[in-house]
């Protein structure tokens, strides 16, 4: 007797609900439909050029399959020189950027919380001021000896990388209990250098790594400043080679650059994710 009455009550409620909830399933059905359409169109827009680039780089002039473009890339005139220059600039940029930004960020986090606001503003400026304007000012006012060196590019790349590097370090340093770690290290007799090297750096390794990777990706892809400062880095070489040869080789070089950057950046994203997971675990 009792179960039946419960059942009846339930059913009565079920019948009362429909007028309010009918909208939901119908909406879902509708929505799925246009979701499929929009993802299809956008997906095509994103994927077709990727497919075309890869396919084009694996074709010869008559349209048949050929990996000649990739094979002849290392021996293409000027390629090695451009690669060497890009590598040198990348290393110089990463080293200077780390030496400049890491101690400053750590110290500011520890002792000068109010200066963080200044750094926030300064490190956003390279996004607001376009690289083309910066290089224009550099070419206009810097002394000749500075402009004669390719390392002027590294100098400016450190500036261009600042937004990523600082953002990354800032997140990494906020995720750890910097003050406790430093005090523990100091009370055990560690000096500043030891604390930095043995305690702080290992704790912000993911942040440091993602900052470095982003810096490398930036240097290897930067075209504006390099071309206007008249240095043939990899991107400049690709464009210049495009004016003399059949196109397959530059597309091949571009696709390599693209896939390389892609892998590097996916690495960064996964590093960031592991970092945020760690900080979440600490918080809970």
């Amino acid at each position, binding site marked *: 007797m009792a179960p039946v009455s419960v059942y009846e009550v339930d059913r009565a409620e079920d019948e009362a609900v429909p007028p309010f909830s009918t909208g939901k399933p119908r909406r879902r059905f509708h929505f799925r439909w246009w979701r499929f359409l929009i993802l299809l169109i956008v997906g095509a827009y994103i994927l077709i050029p990727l497919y075309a680039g890869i396919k084009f780089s694996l074709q010869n002039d008559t349209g048949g399959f050929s990996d000649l473009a990739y094979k002849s890339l290392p021996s293409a005139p000027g390629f090695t020189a451009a690669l060497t220059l890009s590598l040198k600039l990348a290393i110089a940029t990463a080293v200077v950027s780390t030496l400049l930004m890491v101690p400053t960020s750590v110290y500011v986090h520890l002792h000068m919380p109010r200066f963080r606001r200044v750094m926030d503003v300064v490190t956003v400026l390279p996004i607001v001021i376009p690289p083309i304007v910066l290089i224009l000012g550099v070419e206009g006012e810097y002394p000749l000896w500075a402009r004669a060196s390719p390392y002027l590019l590294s100098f400016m790349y450190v500036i261009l990388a*600042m937004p990523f590097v600082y953002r990354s370090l800032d997140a990494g340093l906020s995720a750890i209990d910097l003050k406790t770690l430093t005090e523990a290290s100091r009370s055990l007799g560690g000096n500043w250098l030891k604390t930095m090297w043995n305690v702080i750096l290992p704790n912000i390794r993911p942040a440091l790594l993602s900052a470095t990777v982003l810096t490398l990706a930036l240097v290897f892809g930067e075209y504006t400043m390099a071309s206007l400062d008249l240095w043939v880095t990899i991107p400049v070489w690709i464009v210049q080679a495009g004016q003399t040869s059949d196109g397959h080789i530059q597309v091949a070089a571009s696709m390599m650059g693209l896939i390389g950057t892609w892998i590097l950046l996916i690495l960064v994203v996964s590093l960031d994710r592991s970092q945020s997971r760690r900080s979440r675990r600490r918080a809970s």
Partner: protein
Amino acid sequence: MTIDVTNASDPGASAPGSEAFVVKRRNFRNVLRALEPTFVVTPFVIYSFLGLGVPALAVFYLAFHGETGGWTFENMRLISHGIFLIGFENSIKLGLLTSLIPGVIGVFVAYAIQTSKSNVLKRLTSTGSGVLANFGGINLTFMFIATLGSAGILTAWLHALGISLTSIGFNLYTFSGVVVVYMYFQLPLMVLVITPALAGLRQNWREAAENLGASSWRYWIHVGIPVLMPSILGGMLLLFGSAFAAYATAESLTLGLVALAPIQIGNFLNGNVIAGETHVGYAIAVGMLVILAFVMLLYSLVRKRASKWLQ
């Protein structure tokens, strides 16, 4: 103050000579300690000044100086008409087109992904957007040459369908091509920017609206869109700035032949200038900085509004 500390911490050292010595040393050390923050941030401040301040100030200084020196508004007069004005108009047009279209589509894409049940799709797009948004420059140019250039694969497909790109007024190496290529990194950027805002739309707002009898349509008109609007506008402003300032993609695609403000600065730096107009590049740069400053001002206002509802 220092003397008090010395006495308190070291009451045994009462010999007058040694006390004065200690005080002196402590003073010196305190001065050092007080200066420590300055020492540590000095490299950063100097570096930023040399790399950001000097070039920006140089551009402003040179924009208001003629070739022979002395203050002048001649450069500003030059950029306010003729080809340089067209450059600004085109750049603004490009910025508007590639912020409005990807801005609107990006919201739909982000919403479609956010409400999807597939976790794989979510992870794929969050990683993919991060990568693609950083992906301007010359690699993109060559990828699109392989797609929509005269020997491009999509060009061939469309040709097989009887559609000729040139007959519908599209040419990859002109303004229309630049618009299509820019959207390739603008759309993921919008998805990236707007996703946190969409995640901030609370389920109970929707339930509250439904309990009050609102249809899905009315929920969006009266709750969803008004709450999201500042974030959407903010994202679009960001997109505008990114398209307005970009140089590498447009330059490598059109080889400097399209009239855009950044391209004209590049041409100026490459030495393609008429006598008497050698400082006009600096004036274009100042014009760009003024426009970008205005955009950023709007952006900060909009952000303040956006943070009212969404944290």
